[in-house]
């Protein structure tokens, strides 16, 4: 890396300097490396959550099966849902955002690199904390009215508990009072509540970081309405996180206090209102589902134009539709409670509000089709996944509209029809979108291409497996198969289709295996992609692949939407692109300059403090769970001390190595009154 040089070592609070090897990853504040770490972590959790799903499916493959105990089954669907939502889709989106956001707006890094590292490490240890429940968590039989306890079968059998069963089992939305102290005794649900609390904190920090980055760090000329749609969706999602996470934070605190400190928010015996939990959870929960889908929509909006060789149709419409979805998303939460006994007025109002969301979403769908219309479509793997998203998400969306018809939802709610809906939007939508992104940006990551043959195999296996898995669920639901049922009797006649579903889920698993193989091989022996393999449109392709640590040697001065494309192409009088003569020369120049900056470039220094601070948080939270005994209290103290020390260390850490001629600092001479105020160093990156 050109930006590294020798420099004298000074002061106690030296900042770490290694740029390769283990420590460089531990201490990195480089948004690209953080993005990569997010990505691998998210995918690992996808595999774990998926294996949990496969276990569910084996249990449900035929009627009255006893492959799993009741407790194990409940624990598995709870952990499956929680994992897929909070530990897979969200961090996977965060991976794309981290890696691409600065590249797409022509910035050196995010606004607060150290905070960015902090988010990542908090997420990472949050995930560890949540999963530590498998080893430390306990869940016991419920305590009924009058303090009578439920009973578990002695010596094994379907009624007994086991390793898996001793983890959270309240469902991913932990309805009260079932997930409360009486009906879910033991520590498992505490791990769940506090684990999600930690993960939420991580997302909140990134949300602030990304918003500031988007508003303050765009390269010259990159006006808001010249930003790629993915950046726009990132911004929208950041606001959704910003405004919805505090709500779930409060709700989770209430649960934790009920379970740990004897408050009675949801204790119906003391007059607590279980419905309050539902309002708070879904007031977060519905925005959350758009948090899950909008990044994927952003990805698709990048992929479709490139492989249609046309600009995105109705750019501003797509952008504003995204914002509209987010805004409306805050006004529909009670559609998860149509059966809870809320007044008819409320039911009608929320039903209508829910329907309206179909309109902006439709706008997106139709504009995407408009993008492909009259284009020159290259049906390679990323494109296939993007098109798969379009088709599959539409199914999920439309089944969503059938829920919005309140009375018919009284039949559908809490059945597999719902399970079908949300897997079509989550898997058919978010997951297909994420894979489209992986195939599209893999060259940016590695400078190599993923293998097309394996890619297409992956797509078709996944596409068929996906539909085989989730399409029959619509039918099962309408045939009366309720959700979260560990067993179903033969006389309900649900067996055959459940078997089909189980087979489908293993086909999906197989397709994922193919993908893993493809990734592993292509990273080493993939075809070299060069700088601009797709003839792309956006500025992240104007730098070498993989990008140099400093991203842009000199940030682009953006003149219009799809800046990069217009550097390469003119339009003839008919409005058809004609490649400029100097295009190839330009690419070569960019590649050369990208790798060899003429003048050394200032970058924020690595730091120990983010990881240290984020270790403190789960430590303290473990303490909270066991606060009744001394070593629990000890853990709280230790955690608090670690957090405080790292806070202090953080704030007095030197911004650069004194006298260091290594220019990897963010310019301590920075006048904070004005952003970046003129001088080049750090480009407004504030070392916070």
């Amino acid at each position: 890396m050109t930006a590294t040089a020798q420099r004298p070592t000074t002061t106690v609070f030296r900042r770490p300097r290694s740029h390769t090897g283990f420590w460089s990853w531990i201490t990195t504040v480089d948004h690209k490396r953080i993005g990569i770490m997010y990505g691998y972590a998210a995918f690992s959790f996808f595999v774990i959550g998926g294996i949990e799903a496969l276990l569910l499916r084996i249990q449900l493959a035929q009627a009255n099966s006893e492959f799993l105990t009741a407790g194990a089954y409940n624990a598995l669907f709870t952990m499956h849902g929680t994992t897929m939502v909070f530990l897979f889709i969200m961090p996977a989106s965060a991976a794309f955002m981290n890696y691409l956001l600065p590249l797409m707006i022509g910035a050196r890094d995010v606004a607060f690199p150290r905070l960015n590292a902090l988010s990542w490490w908090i997420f990472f240890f949050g995930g560890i904390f949540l999963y530590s429940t498998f080893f430390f968590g306990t869940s016991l039989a419920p305590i009924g009215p009058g303090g009578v306890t439920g009973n578990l079968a002695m010596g094994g059998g379907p009624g007994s508990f086991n390793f898996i069963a001793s983890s959270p089992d309240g469902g991913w939305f932990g309805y009260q009072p079932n997930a409360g102290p009486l009906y879910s005794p033991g520590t498992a649900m505490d791990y769940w509540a506090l684990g999600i609390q930690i993960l939420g904190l991580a997302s909140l920090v990134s949300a602030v970081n990304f918003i500031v980055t988007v508003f303050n760090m765009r390269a010259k000329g990159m006006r808001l309405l010249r930003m790629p749609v993915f950046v726009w969706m990132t911004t929208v999602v950041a606001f959704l996180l910003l405004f919805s996470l505090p709500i779930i934070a409060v709700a989770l605190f209430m649960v934790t206090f009920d379970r740990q400190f004897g408050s009675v928010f949801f204790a119906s015996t003391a007059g607590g209102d279980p419905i309050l939990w539902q309002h708070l959870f879904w007031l977060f929960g519905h925005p959350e589902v758009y948090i899950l889908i909008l990044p994927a929509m952003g990805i698709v909006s990048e992929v479709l134009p490139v492989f249609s060789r046309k600009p995105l149709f109705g750019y501003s419409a797509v952008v504003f539709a995204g914002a509209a979805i987010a805004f409306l998303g805050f006004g529909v939460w009670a559609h998860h409670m149509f059966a809870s006994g809320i007044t008819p007025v409320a039911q009608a109002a929320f039903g209508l509000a829910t329907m309206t969301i179909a309109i902006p979403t439709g706008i997106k769908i139709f504009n995407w089709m408009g993008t492909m219309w009259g284009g020159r479509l290259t049906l390679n793997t990323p494109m296939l996944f993007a098109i798969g998203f379009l088709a599959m998400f539409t199914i999920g969306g439309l089944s969503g509209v059938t829920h919005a018809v309140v009375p018919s939802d009284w039949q559908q709610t809490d059945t597999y029809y719902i399970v079908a809906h949300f897997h079509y939007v989550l898997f058919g939508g978010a997951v297909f979108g994420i894979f489209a992104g992986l195939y599209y940006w893999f060259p940016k990551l590695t400078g190599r291409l993923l293998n097309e043959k394996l890619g297409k195999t992956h797509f078709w296996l996944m596409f068929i497996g996906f539909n085989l898995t989730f399409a029959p669920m619509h039918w099962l639901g309408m045939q009366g198969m309720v959700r979260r049922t560990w067993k179903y009797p033969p006389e309900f006649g649900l067996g055959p289709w459940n078997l089909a579903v189980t087979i489908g889920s293993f086909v999906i698993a197989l397709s994922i295996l193919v993908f893993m193989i493809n990734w592993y091989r292509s990273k080493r022996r993939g075809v070299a992609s060069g700088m601009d393999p797709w003839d792309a449109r956006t500025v992240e392709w104007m730098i070498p692949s993989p990008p140099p640590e400093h991203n842009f040697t000199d940030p682009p001065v953006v003149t219009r939407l799809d800046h990069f494309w217009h550097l390469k192409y003119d339009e003839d009088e008919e409005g058809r692109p004609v490649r400029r003569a100097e295009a190839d020369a330009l690419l070569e120049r960019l590649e050369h300059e990208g790798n060899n900056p003429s003048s050394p470039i200032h970058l924020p220094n690595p730091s120990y403090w983010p990881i240290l601070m984020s270790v403190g948080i789960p430590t303290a939270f473990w303490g909270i769970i066991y606060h009744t005994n001394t070593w629990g209290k000890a853990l709280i103290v230790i955690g608090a001390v670690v957090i405080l020390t790292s806070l202090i260390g953080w704030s007095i850490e030197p911004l650069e190595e004194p006298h260091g001629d290594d220019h990897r600092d963010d310019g301590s001479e920075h006048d904070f009154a004005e952003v970046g105020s003129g001088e080049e160093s750090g480009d407004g990156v504030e070392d916070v």
Partner: protein
Amino acid sequence: MSAEHQEHPTPAQYWKIAAFLAVITAIEVAMYYIDQELELGVLNAGILVALSTMKFLIVVGWFMHLKFEKPLLSRFFTAGFLLACGCYLVVLSALGVVAVRGG
């Protein structure tokens, strides 16, 4: 510090503002006792809300300088505020009814 185009209030002005805030607070507390006597009910609530809103705006506008900042900041700030009011009012009304008896 950053991009403030108008004049800062002077310390003297700050003291005046604070005094004004103190007075409002006094009135609020007074209202509380008046209400004990006269049972104004809703009217009392209305007045109190109005008064505290005034305090709120003054602190935000002058002490937090929002009045002198780029409009963008106030946009974010009000967005959060209004969203909170909107959503939670709906939650409250929904729950208020449910408690009596479900549909």
